[in-house]
């Protein structure tokens, strides 16, 4: 086993324990925990048997396993950024609603509420 494999597996284990910890404190729901654990298990398998990515890459018509990982990572990252942007926009709209309610509660600005 190479040094990078050892480092990656330690990191994946650490990440899995973090996920379980957040599940115990109720911060993450069961479904999300299963999804993250599956993700880290797959990552650990890939770290232990890197050739597996080569085989999967060939199955989908990509030459190298590393390329497959990069393409998949990029697609997932783009999707996550998009979801984050939607979430930020929702929060923005909620802030606007709150600001509006405050403004309508104090017409004429006599009892101005400073945030």
């Amino acid at each position: 086993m190479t040094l990078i494999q050892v480092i990656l597996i330690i990191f994946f284990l650490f990440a899995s324990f973090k996920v379980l910890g957040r599940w115990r404190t109720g911060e993450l729901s069961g479904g999300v925990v299963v999804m993250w654990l599956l993700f880290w298990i797959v990552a650990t398998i890939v770290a232990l048997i890197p050739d597996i990515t080569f085989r999967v890459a060939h199955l989908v018509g990509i030459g190298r396993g590393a390329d497959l990982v990069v393409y998949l990572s990029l697609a997932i990252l783009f999707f996550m950024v998009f979801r984050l942007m939607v979430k930020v926009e929702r929060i923005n709209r909620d802030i606007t609603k709150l600001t509006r309610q405050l403004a309508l509660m104090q017409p004429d600005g006599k009892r101005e509420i400073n945030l």
Partner: protein
Amino acid sequence: MVFIIVPAYNEEEAIGRVVRDLFQQGFQNVVVIDDGSIDETGALARSAGATVLRHSINRGQGAALQTGNQYALESGAEIVVHFDGDGQLNAKDIALAINRLNTEKLDIILGSRFLDSRTHMPWSKRHILLPISRWINFVFTGLQLSDVHNGFRILSRSALKAIVITQDGMAHNTEIVAQIKIHNLTFAEHPVEVRYYEYGQGVRGGLKILSDFLFGHFVN
């Protein structure tokens, strides 16, 4: 009952004159939405006689207009006028446009800078930026208009009830036009004068409006 809604953000140089002009034209209900200004906009508008609603933090022109719309709706407004707080619009245009809204029984009137020759705008804006913007607006809203994005608008009570502005920034203009089509509201464009003291929305502003409008569809 006519309500004039004036969104304003850091407009201390113009807001007093804008409010006084509106009162001089005989309008009683002038509501300034001070959109989190850090200057004296709110105080000057209030001392000029306007009702002032203050956003504690800056939320954008669309957000300010929706706050004004909601206030007007709850106050029993029959007609609402959207009017910019930067002093570029002419208060004398309002009465004629309201008259037209009533006589033609329209739901909404949109100001247009291209229906008479009073507005003098930068050449690049008139001949390059606005024609492209008009075409993009048509593609995304389905309404062909002579103008895009100016702050002059008159809404009947039925339009006020139907139109809900969710775009906090400048994309509210496109959103309103899209909602006119969706709700089958009757509308007309009416000539207005815009006096240019600065360039206003440039290419970057236009692209931001387009991306905000498109992205907004994923949020609801």
